[in-house]
């Protein structure tokens, strides 16, 4: 009987990972700009399950620009040259080694199975708990590559349920009514990011998201979201979601008077978004109906581009570059949920920001050196005296001008963590 084995490397790219780690450490020490991209690249590499054999291959991952790939290839070249000189056994990665290792695993499994067959049948091993089973299934689903050959899929517009029924059901009916009258095939769903998306669905139920996301804002919504800061947070989330084309669909509100902010400010905010972020397009419409007409038009253009154009679709993981394929709806949905998992670093920065006059620049300067609360506490413990510990953070350089954090803030942070208070 045949069994399917899934072989996953524990650490598929140890060499590149270590190089990136040391470059990142170096960049962090010297506070170079490259550290941010390096961190991104390192995270993407850690999440990628397959072995990569050259810098060039790394280009598929997020954060790996041409310079970084070249750096890796240069290092590889040096390593190979060195090995040639010393003519030691090749320790470089190569695909035949991978094959060998896979064969070894297969042999081990075969041996185990033949042993099992010789022994009397032991009682069945304990079944995985339901939760574990579900988690395993979900993980497998995430890894599975989905392919949609031309003609096997259709394009559907997804409408966020909150976009339509947020204020009241009348709005939902209006949106659906307009779309229906325009003959747009659509589906109302809860979206964790954006108001409108397009997906390609095939008969098997796979759903791949086309690389466009629409955020619809009426001018009065735009004004209120700018005033309470939501606009920038939302813009950030849109940029992070992994879809390369963001469309702000801005709808007039009557004659755009009495919006809560001067019209000029709103237009400047839109111009800023458009100019300062290449991924953002701004589209202005006169009313709700025209907005739906626009969506119908885009849907038609996508139909031309993908279906009539006979495009073959392929799925990709979030950490891969957008040119590698389309995201699965599930992955986009889960990743963009507002409370998707935070890192310790992010929470630590947010906590530090709670202190008045501790700006983002300063918080980042602290986290640069002491990236988690525990690391800061370790450093305090390593100080010779309390006085020394209180001044530990004072000389840290903050911002592009590297202004020192200062004694007052340093003492404040220390006292907060180290002293007892009620």
């Amino acid at each position, binding site marked *: 009987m045949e069994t399917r084995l899934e072989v996953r490397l524990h650490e598929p790219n140890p060499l590149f990972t270590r190089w990136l780690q040391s470059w990142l450490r170096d960049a962090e020490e010297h506070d170079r700009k490259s550290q941010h991209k390096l961190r991104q690249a390192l995270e993407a590499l850690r999440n990628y399950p397959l072995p990569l054999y050259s810098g060039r291959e790394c280009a598929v991952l997020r954060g790996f620009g041409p310079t970084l790939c070249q750096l890796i290839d240069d290092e590889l070249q040096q390593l190979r040259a060195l090995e040639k000189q010393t003519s030691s056994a090749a320790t470089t990665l190569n695909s035949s080694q991978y094959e060998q290792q896979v064969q070894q695993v297969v042999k081990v499994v075969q041996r185990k199975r033949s042993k099992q067959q010789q022994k009397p049948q032991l009682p069945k091993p304990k079944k995985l708990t339901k939760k574990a089973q579900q988690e395993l299934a979900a993980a497998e689903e995430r890894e599975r590559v989905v392919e949609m050959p031309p003609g096997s899929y259709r394009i559907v517009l997804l409408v966020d349920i909150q976009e339509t029924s947020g204020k009241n059901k009348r709005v939902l009916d209006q949106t659906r009514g307009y779309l229906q009258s325009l003959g747009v095939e659509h589906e109302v769903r809860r979206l964790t990011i954006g108001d409108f998306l397009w997906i390609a669905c095939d008969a098997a139920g796979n759903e791949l998201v086309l690389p466009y996301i629409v955020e619809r804002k009426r001018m009065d919504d735009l004004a209120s979201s700018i005033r309470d*800061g939501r606009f920038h947070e939302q813009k950030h989330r849109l940029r992070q979601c992994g879809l390369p084309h963001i469309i702000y669909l801005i709808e007039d509100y009557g004659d755009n008077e009495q919006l809560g902010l001067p019209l000029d400010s709103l237009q400047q905010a839109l111009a800023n978004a458009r100019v300062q972020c290449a991924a953002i*397009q701004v*589209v202005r419409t006169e009313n709700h109906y*025209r907005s739906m007409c626009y969506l119908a038009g885009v849907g038609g253009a996508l139909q031309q581009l993908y279906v009539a154009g006979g495009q073959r679709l392929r799925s990709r993981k979030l950490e891969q570059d957008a040119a590698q394929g389309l995201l699965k709806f599930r992955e986009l949905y889960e990743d963009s949920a507002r409370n998707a998992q*935070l*890192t310790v670093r992010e*929470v630590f920065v*947010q906590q530090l920001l709670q202190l*008045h006059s501790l700006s983002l620049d300063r918080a980042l300067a602290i986290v640069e050196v002491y990236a988690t609360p*525990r690391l800061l506490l370790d450093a305090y413990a390593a100080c010779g005296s309390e006085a020394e510990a209180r001044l530990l953070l004072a000389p840290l350089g903050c911002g592009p001008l590297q202004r020192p954090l200062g004694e007052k803030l340093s003492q404040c942070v220390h006292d907060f963590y180290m002293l007892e208070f009620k």
Partner: protein
Amino acid sequence: MSSKADKLLKQAIKEQQKRIRPGECLKYVRLVLDASLLHHFLGQELITQLNRSDLKYEIRSLPATNCIVWERNVGQQTFVAGSADLADAWRMEQQVLRLFNETEFQRSIKEHNLGCIGVKLHEAFAMPNCQFTVVVPRLRQSKNNSNEANALIELQLLQQLHVEQLPSPHAQELLALLQRYTKAIAETPYKQQRQEILGSFKKYLANDNKQCVRVEQGLGYGRLWQQHLNRLPMVTLEVAESIIAQYPCPKRLLQHFDNDPNAIQVLADIKIKRTNGPEPLQSQRRIGNVLSSKLHTLYNARDPNTLI
């Protein structure tokens, strides 16, 4: 020796920072209009308006007709050809506007030339990452306009061009547009600097200091501790207060984690006080294992990329 180099470097950075600061940065950016715009239907009026405004501009022959670009004075100087003088170096920004009048645009649609617009612009301005914007007078919304509307959508989706529709009065609106764009372009380096940092975090970090706590002479730490706890997504006011009742300062919680081998369980079992309404469900009355583990991770992890 190195301190002199350091000083120069610091000075250069300081100078650069000043130049990109919002407000200041407008002084260092100017428009460049293609000479053909003088004959454009809006051209003369636009020039008049520009002269009345604060915007700095030059008229030159650009690689494509009816275009407007922007240049920034980057603080360097170059030799002027044919003389011993130095002149300011101006670097072109990555934005190009292409003005269309209505007839020209309609003609392009009729002759199915739209596809060429993007290509021609890319060829004329070969700068990498350049963003092109097509400026057309606002289309009269009529039943027959679906052709034009679809044309604009095509430009956006298929050719990655931006589209700006000018309402009337056209010249004034164009001036307002140019003012907005100039401001946005002037501030781009500053915003990009911020984005480099903010963008490497999944969560948007620049929003959070609305309720920051002032600490004066040791007062305010309690409130600060509560807000620290609130940063975790699952921590409500009641949960935070219940934790603070047991551990009024971070030091106590940290000691608990260090000394008690069963720390997470003990923390998880703390009852939440003052839950509203009738007898709450058993599962909600405790802090719970999940939150307790998260707190433990937060204050004990040494790897900053650990997920909470």
